[in-house]
């Protein structure tokens, strides 16, 4: 029987997102699937269906023992050893490292050490260098966390990593029958009470807090939103509260504003699925509950704020919407991000709610200036996102779609997608030319720098050529931050350069040369991709011209 271990040493949201991958592996292999996580996230991991065993590393205890001068360090080492020993002594057919950090990479290597197991994702080889199982592992670890226009959804990228298709059917979350009954009875009571007054209501759950302040929906926005919901007889708000003092106090503060007339539901992770299954819609910032609602097919309005790339782990449910400030103006970089309240208003969120219940309203409802509405859609490559309402943002949407196409073109040999080309050419036939020209110029300049780096590397010997080479290399790597099409190739290239073994200069020079030639191939593929798009646009324009002429002829003949 196939024995798979999935490692994820990140937080609740990432662990919950594994449910998609687990469901897909289960559908194809029918083997046993276990996960390794930090102990502090176990209550969320227990929600994952089809998991045979949850292994944990007790990081809290480790850090308590290690960081406090009272305790002997040897205890922290032994506890860690025992945690790892439990999972190390199992035989694994497949080890998948789904988190991009050094601890998980070392853990993967340890578990694959004895029987030379193949690891999907990142790991350290025996010369202590980071290795990537495929280019998708590089996209997962080095492109998705940095690149503004997430070229793939995180969940899809995990599937590409193990070359598995995403299985949509099948339950992915455990819910407790006892909590299901309680939640159904309580929420149904609200529905029945309201129906006595002749209203068939929609219950709207409001998640009040996230794990970081910059993602939270501001207090005044929530008040405005609740006020609007209360004024609509068919909407009924309930406050969703976690069992923490901080959330209770915040919930009380909001409730006090409405003379304590609001319904609050306090639930831990075990009870939360039952609550989400019984409401009609969830309004939430980008937090773990968003992923849970998605896995339960509960539609949601995600209010996206903060610096994390907003579509990297966006909703996969086409019935849900994401509300954002104009993305091309947002800063998706923690160091440059300046904390300020979002300009998304309660009215914007209220309109987004209406759009979820009536998708035809997306384009007709008015949102504040600079606020856009996004939905997910799906094609043969997986999920992609498109603007369906609010402020238009051609620059962003174009970059989003083309980045995705170029990423696949760089990784999959001979990849070409006529459907995509005609879609992008049709949608952006007037704005695309200028944008492509800018990208082409940047590609051309970067290619010159690349060729200079190759030339100086291959003619090494003089001090001058070494300086020229390092200058060119620095120039190339600085392009990683620019969020252009070439940045995707450069980020992948950087993952090679950053993980060279510094102890062997000759070996390094050879590896750098190989990476530079690989980068050159990627640039050629970007160039080819741009050309394909230009040809598709040309074709559409010619068609338009022919159709225009036909119409003129028809008009002439009629007149």
């Amino acid at each position: 029987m196939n024995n798979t271990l999935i490692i994820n040493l990140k937080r609740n949201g990432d662990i919950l997102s594994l449910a998609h991958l687990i469901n897909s592996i289960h559908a194809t292999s029918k083997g046993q699937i276990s996960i390794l996580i930090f102990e502090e996230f176990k209550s969320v991991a227990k929600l994952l269906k089809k998991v045979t065993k949850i292994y944990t590393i007790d990081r809290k205890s480790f850090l308590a023992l290690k960081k406090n001068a009272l305790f002997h360090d040897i205890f922290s080492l032994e506890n860690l050893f025992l945690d790892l020993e439990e999972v190390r002594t199992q035989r694994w057919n497949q080890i998948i490292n789904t988190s991009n950090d050094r601890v998980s990479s070392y853990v993967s290597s340890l578990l694959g050490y004895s029987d030379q197991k193949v690891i999907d994702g990142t790991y350290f080889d025996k010369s202590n260098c980071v290795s990537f199982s495929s280019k998708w592992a590089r996209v997962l670890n080095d492109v998705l966390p940095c690149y503004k226009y997430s070229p793939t959804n995180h969940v899809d990228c995990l599937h590409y990593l193990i070359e598995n298709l995403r299985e949509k059917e099948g339950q992915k979350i455990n819910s407790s029958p006892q909590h299901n009954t309680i939640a159904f009875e309580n929420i149904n009571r609200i529905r029945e009470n309201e129906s006595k007054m002749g209203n068939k209501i929609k219950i709207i759950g409001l998640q009040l807090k996230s794990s970081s302040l910059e993602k939270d929906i501001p207090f005044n926005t929530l008040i405005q939103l609740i006020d609007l919901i209360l004024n609509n007889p068919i909407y009924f708000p309930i406050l969703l509260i976690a069992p923490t003092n901080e959330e209770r106090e915040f919930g009380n503060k909001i409730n006090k504003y409405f003379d304590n007339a609001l319904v609050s539901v306090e639930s831990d992770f075990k009870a939360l699925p039952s609550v989400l299954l019984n409401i009609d819609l969830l309004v939430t910032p980008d937090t773990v509950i968003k992923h849970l609602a998605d896995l339960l097919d509960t539609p949601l309005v995600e209010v996206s704020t903060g610096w994390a790339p907003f579509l990297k782990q966006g909703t996969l449910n086409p019935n849900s919407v994401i509300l954002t400030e104009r993305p091309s103006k947002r800063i998706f970089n923690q160091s440059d991000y300046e904390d300020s309240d979002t300009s998304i208003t309660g009215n914007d969120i209220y309109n987004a709610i209406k759009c979820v219940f009536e998708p035809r309203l997306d384009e007709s409802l008015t949102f504040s200036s600079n606020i856009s509405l996004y939905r997910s859609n799906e094609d043969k490559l997986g999920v992609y996102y498109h603007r369906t309402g609010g402020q238009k943002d051609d620059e962003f949407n174009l970059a989003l779609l083309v980045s995705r196409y170029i990423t696949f073109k760089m990784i999959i040999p001979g990849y070409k997608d006529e459907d995509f080309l005609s879609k992008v050419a049709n949608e952006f036939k007037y704005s695309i030319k200028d944008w492509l020209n800018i990208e082409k110029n940047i590609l051309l300049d970067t290619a010159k720098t690349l060729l200079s780096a190759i030339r100086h590397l291959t003619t090494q010997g003089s001090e001058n050529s070494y300086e020229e080479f390092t200058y060119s290399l620095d120039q190339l790597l600085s392009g990683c931050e620019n969020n252009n099409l070439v940045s995707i190739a450069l980020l992948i290239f950087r993952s090679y350069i950053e993980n060279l073994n510094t102890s062997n200069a000759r070996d390094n020079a050879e590896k750098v040369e190989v990476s530079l030639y690989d980068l050159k191939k990627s640039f050629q593929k970007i160039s080819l991709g741009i050309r394909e798009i230009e040809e598709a646009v040309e074709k559409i324009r010619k068609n338009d011209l022919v159709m225009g002429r036909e119409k003129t002829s028809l008009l002439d003949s009629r007149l």
Partner: protein
Amino acid sequence: MSTRFKITSYEIKESKTGEKVPVVNGIHLHSIYNPIKEAENFIEENKGLLKENSNILVLGLGFGYHIKELIKQLKELHNNQFELCIIEPIHQLVNDSQELYNSFENTKILAELTIEELYSDRTFINFLVTKPALLAHPSSFNLSKSYFTNLLKYKSDNKLDKTRYLLQNPILKNIFNDYPQELSLDELVENKCNNKRSIEGEIDYIFHIYNELSKQVGPKEELR
């Protein structure tokens, strides 16, 4: 620091209300008038602390009147979900109050251990890792002030020759026999992770994991 507590005088008196009261080195460990009332007041004064914490480290057992009250209060506040650990340097007190403390629930008493012995005791360490609240029984604390102060100010010695014996796992014990004993664990890990690039065995990966995890800070608690 490692010497045990010295008793120069020890007697048991009877309070006005009929309870036994130990008097050690001339110090009455409980009220000579009404030890139970005194214990009730002591616990009432600390109710706020007990509301917030279900695990309590108590410094000083005496004859345990305050412990009995404490358990009563914790049961009320946290049902049966609480843990107590009591440190008492005077073994005689533990012996003489056995009748009383035999009925204590969810309680561990660590008596007459040196500070080094305490910080080598896994049960004690595992309890401390849960970050218990600290409750010092005033007269016991005054009686054994230097013992309890040393307990709170302790700094572990991490040299391998001083700590290797604490390892319980035979595989780890064997591995550590081969390393220079004059090094501290951190020095050993630094040597393994910074001065040597290639990996020679599984333990090297474990040292790297240890090293990387040590750099982390715990996450902000998530909401549910």
